[in-house]
């Protein structure tokens, strides 16, 4: 077969913007001086095309006649060193896929089946760059060796060009399917060896339960009838490992726990049941539609529409390949609302990241750990490509920095959707499957990528971790699949849908089969990316962009027609049954035959131990200069402006954005929450917000949990959400909380989890905000030189709320000089985990708690004031407390603020610094037109409000202390500059 290599570069004089930004990164991030940088796109095409055809492809498809030049040989020779980077074989290459399609359009015939396209990019360097520096640039910035190959070459040595395509050519050695049997009739030690070597992540009691099942007489007899022996097949064992994984079954949250605190032992019958689900039951809102049972939670929005919301984590893959990990994370969570009920249309994304500090010294990084800045930039780009290309606005988020996340970055990705309450008279939140309905796999094809993702997430990362669980998402494949499926949904052509995420088909089909109580699958029908996959791989592969739907036989033709119109692959791979069995065949031969009851109910339970030891430290208080502290907090990356990130996300698409992530006079103030108007003809709005503060959790996860719930809720309330119509999601990222010889403080980590769960319950019930869905991720640990590095317990609470009329939404920027400044809530000495401590290196105080009933009363009163149109601005007090909120309100509005602390409502006698910097919950900084101030006070009569001062035309933040002397005065534009500088890359 002929191999063509087409190099495409920019004409002289045309700006190579990518090269320019790469050059900046090399200089700034790697501190290597480089002269000129240019980029060249390379398309290596293996197919028997004629010369005319390849010239046509080169000029009509691959080269822009205005800006680019191209060549079938070397495009440039005037460089000193070059680095060529391309994906390794088997890694999704989206551009190559599109190129094949483009070639087919151009030539009017399908791209040859045995042909291949591979894309790579050359970075050309001028000056006198040495091979050693080239290696540093390649490995440190341009290529990720886990997923990419790179070649360093000079103009005289281009021998690598043959190498580039090797391995990408279609494998010719087709072979039959292989199924292995595993002998489980062995001792305990051997059972555990099988589990660990196979990355099954099953513990001993689970392995024993599996062994015992296959020994049952009836099981042996039934298996014999379908041609199976007494030993389980690899397909069966792999399915059980997926289905029983922590990722799918949430074993830690469902386990019984013996919790010890201060010598007292408490028996907890499952954290989920006791604290999360029970909170929702106690709150008992009539607008809850579907909670905890589907891929995402569903709440009522209007008479005709429901909202759907889910937040996931994608931590381990993002540590190994930040771009692919985050991209897969975002397109992966998209499929949750899409796979909820009969499928929701997606209306927003929200993302929260935890990274190591961007300036973390590179010489302190162990080998294979990417620098925090590189992880940050890669994750950001992944979310950009996932969100923007799916056409979903990214409307809200947060980024937290802490050295504890250097080895284990956290990437939370959330997606919300909307769906009509009924379609053709059928409620959309209910899936239904009957015996005989067809199992249809829709979207991408199956490859080896992402095998063992579900079980891999239950293993800690270490220096030698391999990358088989990393994938690159294909947003356009998913976008057209989504568009096609929603069209089919609106014609009621399917009765159930779910996504293929963790566990692949074994999970999606296995879960859906619970509705009909059984299934029969013929695996060889499932389309593959390349030959050579064995049945167990087909069954558990987590290849992206796939949904599984249940279609009635009489509707299959109409369903397929829509898929065809959208160029979306859809394949019938079996039938749902009421047999009580999961039955999987490959080329007619049974490879899996298990009882539904065992697969879904056979997981043995256990009891876990938790022991709480309160933090000892309660350092002493030291007063530091308030202005210096304020500036240090504003310029701390946690608080500093995220405009550089936000602007690279499309937050306008779908034309629903009403309160954007950046607000205020110069459109750069930090919004507390997003408000969307998803129905063009209606005034109702969706409010989206988040709450997270791991600094509190380091001292007491209970305080972290109540604070996170309150922060999410008060952010939503600040922009105008109805406090009685807010639902929340929990998302726990933890270390390994199971006590063992290898994990001697597992009982402490579990106690932290118990305390966080108790906090969730108290805050949710107190505030009246039910949980509707959630997620947990354990094993966020890194093994380094025999030591286990664990992240601090990190709880993200995400809120989705409703505002009756978006015209009443409130933004955080000060709006008119003369407006009166109020504070809602009470300030206490709650300095533990505060940013004042952080920037001043103090360890004073305990973290904030929550008087939830009082906060709820305040929020409801505030909402009345919003509805009465009394509010100019409202801003949440979180990191940095009152003075940071005041500074942000002022500089976002372009006006000054004067505050007199003697009017501040406090509990106990507080110092000026505590009043300014304490991070007590339940507080909002509010500005009110002066002629409405009295009415506002009347509406708020039963709440804690303090009249603090006013908005001024002079652009200064001025604070008068309790002794009536000026303690702080600062130019707001100077404060804004300090706040904008750190992350302005």
């Amino acid at each position: 077969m002929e191999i063509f290599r087409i190099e495409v570069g920019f004409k002289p004089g045309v700006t190579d913007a990518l090269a320019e930004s790469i050059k900046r990164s090399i200089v700034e991030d790697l501190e290597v001086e480089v002269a000129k940088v240019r980029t060249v796109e390379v398309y290596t095409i293996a197919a028997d095309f004629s010369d005319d055809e390849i010239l046509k492809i080169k000029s009509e498809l691959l080269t822009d006649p205005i800006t680019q030049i191209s060549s079938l040989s070397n495009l440039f020779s005037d460089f000193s060193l070059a680095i060529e980077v391309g994906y390794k074989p088997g890694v999704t290459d989206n551009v190559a896929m599109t190129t094949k399609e483009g070639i087919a359009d151009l030539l009017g015939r399908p791209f040859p089946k045995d042909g291949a396209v591979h894309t790579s990019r050359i970075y050309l360097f001028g000056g006198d760059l040495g091979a050693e520096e080239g290696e540093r640039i390649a490995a440190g910035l341009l290529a990720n060796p886990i997923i990419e190959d790179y070649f360093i070459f000079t103009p005289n040595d281009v021998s690598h060009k043959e190498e580039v395509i090797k391995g990408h050519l279609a494998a010719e050695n087709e072979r039959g399917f292989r199924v292995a049997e595993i002998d489980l009739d062995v001792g305990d030690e051997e059972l555990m060896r099988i589990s660990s070597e196979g990355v099954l992540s099953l513990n001993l009691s689970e392995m024993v339960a599996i062994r015992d099942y296959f020994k049952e007489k009836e099981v042996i007899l039934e298996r014999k009838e379908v041609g199976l022996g007494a030993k389980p097949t690899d397909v069966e064992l792999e399915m059980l490992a997926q289905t029983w994984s922590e990722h799918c079954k949430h074993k830690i949250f469902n386990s019984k726990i013996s919790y010890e605190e201060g010598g007292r032992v408490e028996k907890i019958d499952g954290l989920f049941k006791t604290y999360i689900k029970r909170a929702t039951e106690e709150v008992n809102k009539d607008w809850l539609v579907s909670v905890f049972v589907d891929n995402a939670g569903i709440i009522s929005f209007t008479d005709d529409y429901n909202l759907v919301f889910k937040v996931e984590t994608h931590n381990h893959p993002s540590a190994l390949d930040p771009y692919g990990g985050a991209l897969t994370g975002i397109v992966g969570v998209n499929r949750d609302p899409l796979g909820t009920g009969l499928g929701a249309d997606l209306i927003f994304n929200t993302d929260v990241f935890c990274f190591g500090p961007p300036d973390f010294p590179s010489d302190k990084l162990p080998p294979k750990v990417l620098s925090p800045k590189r992880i940050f930039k890669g994750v950001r780009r992944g979310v950009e490509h996932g969100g923007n290309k799916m056409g979903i606005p990214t409307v809200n988020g947060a980024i937290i920095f802490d050295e504890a996340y250097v080895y284990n970055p956290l990437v939370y990705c959330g997606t919300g959707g909307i769906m009509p309450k009924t379609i053709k008279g059928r409620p959309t939140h209910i899936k239904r499957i009957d015996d005989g309905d067809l199992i249809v796999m829709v979207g991408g094809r199956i490859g080896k990528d992402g095998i063992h993702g579900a079980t891999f997430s239950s293993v800690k990362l270490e220096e030698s971790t391999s990358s088989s669980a990393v994938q690159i998402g294909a947003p356009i494949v998913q976008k057209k699949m989504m568009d096609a499926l929603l069209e089919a949904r609106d014609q009621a052509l399917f009765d159930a849908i779910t996504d293929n995420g963790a566990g692949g088909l074994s999970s999606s089909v296995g879960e859906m089969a619970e509705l009909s109580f059984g299934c029969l699958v013929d695996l060889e029908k499932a389309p593959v990316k390349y030959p050579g996959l064995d049945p167990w791989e087909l069954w558990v592969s987590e290849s992206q962009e796939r949904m599984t739907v249940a279609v009635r036989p009489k509707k299959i033709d109409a369903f397929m027609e829509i898929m065809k119109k959208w160029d979306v692959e859809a394949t019938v791979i079996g039938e749902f049954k009421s047999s009580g069995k999961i039955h999987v065949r490959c080329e007619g031969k049974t490879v899996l035959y298990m009882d539904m009851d065992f697969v879904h109910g056979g997981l043995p339970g256990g009891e876990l131990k938790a022991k709480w030891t309160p933090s000892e430290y309660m350092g002493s208080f030291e007063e530091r200069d308030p202005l210096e502290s304020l500036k240090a907090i504003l310029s701390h990356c946690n608080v500093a402006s995220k405009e550089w990130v936000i602007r690279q996300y499309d937050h306008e698409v779908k034309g629903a954005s009403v309160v954007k992530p950046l607000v205020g006079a110069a459109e750069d103030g930090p919004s507390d929450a997003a408000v969307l108007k998803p129905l063009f003809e209606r005034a109702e709005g969706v409010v989206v917000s988040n709450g997270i503060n791991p600094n509190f959790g380091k001292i007491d996860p209970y305080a972290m949990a109540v604070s996170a719930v309150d922060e999410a809720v008060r952010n939503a309330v600040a922009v105008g959400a109805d406090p009685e119509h807010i639902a929340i999601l929990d998302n726990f990222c933890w270390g390994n909380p199971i006590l063992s010889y290898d994990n001697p403080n597992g009982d402490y980590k579990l106690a932290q989890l118990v305390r966080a769960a108790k906090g969730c319950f108290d805050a949710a019930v107190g505030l009246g905000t039910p949980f509707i869905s959630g997620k947990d991720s354990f094993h966020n640990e890194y093994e380094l030189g025999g030591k286990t590095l664990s992240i601090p317990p990190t709880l993200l609470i995400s809120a989705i709320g409703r505002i009756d009329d978006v015209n009443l939404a409130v933004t955080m920027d000060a709006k008119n000089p003369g407006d009166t400044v109020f504070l809602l809530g009470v300030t206490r000495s709650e300095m533990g985990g505060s940013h004042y401590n952080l920037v001043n290196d103090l360890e004073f105080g305990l973290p904030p708690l929550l008087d939830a009933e009082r906060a709820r009363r305040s929020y409801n009163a505030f909402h009345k004031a919003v509805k009465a149109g009394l509010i100019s601005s409202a801003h949440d007090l979180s990191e940095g407390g009152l003075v940071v909120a005041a500074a942000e309100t002022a500089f976002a509005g372009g006006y000054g603020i004067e505050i007199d602390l003697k009017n501040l409502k406090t509990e106990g006698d507080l110092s000026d610094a505590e009043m300014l910097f304490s991070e007590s919950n339940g507080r909002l900084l509010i500005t009110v037109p002066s002629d409405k101030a009295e009415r506002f006070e009347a509406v708020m009569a039963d709440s804690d409000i303090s009249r603090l001062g006013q908005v001024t035309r002079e652009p200064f933040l001025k604070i008068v202390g309790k002794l009536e002397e000026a303690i702080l005065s600062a130019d707001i534009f100077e404060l804004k500059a300090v706040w904008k500088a750190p992350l302005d890359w």
Partner: protein
Amino acid sequence: MLKKPRTCVLLAAGINRDMDALNAFNMAGASCERVHINSLAERKGSLKRYDILMLPGGFSFGDDIASGKVLANKLKYKLLDEILDFALAGKLIFGVCNGFQVMVKLGLLPGLGGDYKSQRTTLTFNDSGKFEDRWVHLKADPASKCIFTKGIEDLIYVPVCHGEGKFMVDSKETLEELKNNGQVAVTYVDSAGFLAGYPYNPNGSVENIAGICDPTGRIFGMMPHPENFTLGLHHPTWARGGIPREGAGLIFFQNAVNYVKKNL
């Protein structure tokens, strides 16, 4: 024409501002259908039923190879004759963002000398090297023949959301011809209405060009998103007051609808 002008909103893999454009045209008084390119290609002649062809924004085919390129080729090989007939029949074609990219790569714009098949201009990577979502001020040329920008006197504030919006031409002559023909319909300006650099010109477009029309003024493409400013509530500072309930971006769609009502 008394009936509502019929608008075909084109769908393809990765198009994502189809509903935004549809809502804008509906508001302006058109009736719209979203039609997949494969349906148009399969049902020959079906484009004739419409008065306006809308090429919405998005990431058709992921912007792979070059933004708009793959969809432009699909249109070229599957629908070009029908699109040219549509244009010759005096009907309107409007492309926003990715739609504009498709139009210039197809050669439908700028259509110099009636040649609608040759690419003379392009839209390439922003000078900033990144995708950006920000609002920009636009100035319409009152002397332009563009149907869509008629009567726009004040500056218009609208969002751009793109990574490849830098307008470039193949030669100085082309640029001169575009200007002389009144084809440069909208340019990026600062808040006082003067040509200015980044971020006012968000991508480094030559002479701050934000959108161009063909010599007839009936075929028009622009990078910014007027369909995302049809309501006052879309404006980033509406909460500070002084923003009318109807968004300034609506006029592009109203102009199109009024033209069809009057002329077709």
